[in-house]
């Protein structure tokens, strides 16, 4: 196939690392479908600059995913998919969260992921870099092409927002039945 001949190694890269790349794109874009769109857009960008990036396509691809997520995706002002969960599912989850039972952990995860998807793109990107990719603040700043201070403030605001959106749930439904204190559940 022509694409395989021209973009040698790209198919192999996606076959080998596609799952991780799609996972990153999914967390950034707010859902699996939007994530696949984001990954495809990044691949198109890589193809456009193939002559420059073919030696290290994964690095460029990952960087492009983040940059598109922060810039282009933000420009579209698209409502996130809330990671594939329907609103009804989320409503049910929210209701159940108010009634502690054996699925508390699932409800907390839903609340966190929903909160993540509703963050501004840069805050979301910083949190994904820090807590999904496990990068340092300096590495995250390098990936996004911004200052260390921007990463710190974005992370701080993003985490603060997540604490807010999960606070009510945490009070009523944390497994340990203890309130949130200084960002720590016990």
């Amino acid at each position, binding site marked *: *196939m*022509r*694409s*395989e001949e*021209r*973009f040698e190694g*790209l*198919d192999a890269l*996606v076959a080998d690392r*596609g*799952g991780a*790349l*799609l*996972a990153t794109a*999914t*967390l950034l874009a707010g*859902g*699996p*479908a*939007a*994530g*696949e*769109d984001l*990954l*495809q*857009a990044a*691949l*198109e960008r890589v*193809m*456009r600059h193939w002559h420059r990036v073919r030696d290290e396509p994964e690095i460029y691809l990952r960087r492009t995913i983040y940059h598109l997520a922060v810039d282009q995706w933000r420009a579209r002002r*698209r*409502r996130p*998919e809330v*990671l*594939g969960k329907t609103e009804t599912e989320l409503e049910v989850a929210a209701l159940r969260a108010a009634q502690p039972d054996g699925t508390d952990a699932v409800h*907390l*995860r839903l609340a*966190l*992921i929903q909160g*993540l998807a509703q963050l501004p793109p840069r805050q979301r990107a910083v*949190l*994904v870099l*820090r*807590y*999904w990719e*496990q990068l340092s603040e300096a590495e995250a700043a390098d990936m996004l092409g911004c200052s260390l201070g921007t990463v710190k403030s974005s992370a701080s605001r993003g*985490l603060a927002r*997540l*604490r807010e959106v*999960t606070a009510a749930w945490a009070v009523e439904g944390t497994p*340990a039945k203890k309130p949130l204190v200084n*960002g*720590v*559940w*016990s």
Partner: protein
Amino acid sequence: MTRTIEDLLAASMREEVVGLTPAPDLVARAARRHRQRTRIRRAASVTGTAGIAAAVAIGLTVASSGPGAVRTGPGAAKAGSQAASSPQARLVAAMTTSAQLSYRLHLVNTSILPGHQMTPTSQPRDLINWYADYTGVYDPRTRSGAGVNIMRRQSGTGTDPSLYGKVDGRIQVRIVSGNYYTRLGNGEPWFTGRGTLVQALVLNGGRAWAPTDRASADPAVLLAAVRRLGSVTSAGKSGSGARALDTYTFRYNIAGDASLKPHRLTGTIVVHDQSDLIAKITMQTSVTGASPQIADGGPLTFKTVMTFSDYGVPVSVQAPAGAVRLPGAAKLKG
């Protein structure tokens, strides 16, 4: 046990994306989109048509957000995604690309008038089946082309040739800068008028048949009509490899006038999957007269099939001298 929100967030992320795998054709899709954009940029550069890229971009935006937007493929049921690869967007790109190249065109137009009745008091006439078979070349950039059109009355009895012109004929056709020229054969006089290639092939005494309104052998013109008036849906893919084809269906409504009731034109557009060039356009409609004074016994049905091939074929056509001018009907291209 104490867990920070950072730990919980990291764990939630891991659980949320576990098992995700990209679609098997993701790279191929990206490559196709990449090639499509490259071709459009090159076409715009070569022709100097600065507006093409912008027009396509607008088309992509409009197509992805319009009420007729349809979603297909792996992301079909996923809200808000795949906007840039909607059927409309892909079709806009394919038709825009095709309109930048010359091509060989085979056009077959069939007109069926079942139980044709000229007036409410006249005797119904038998079924008449007209058939026009045109083979030629056309370049939408210069709005020029040439070919031969074979017109036949395939069936029917009791027709009055004076009502319909020549019953059978092998008609030479040229299109030069939006003017058509026709003659019945070598040594016969040329007649000319202002109109589209499609209209030149199915003229009704110099006036285009209503169903050919906005019908054009120029994909860009037809595309404009579809985008302005109609809707597009994807009908899926057939074949594989170099022979893979994407099929789209479209429809738009044509307003009635003093002589015809409102009617709907429907059709299909088949696009080569790999090259994103149009392979075939089929369109049909059925019209009924609006005036009881010229009421037909049944609807008049038209079907036009255009097959495109040999993209890039050289086209060099000159206007014949001494052509007799006929009343023109259209201001459209192609």
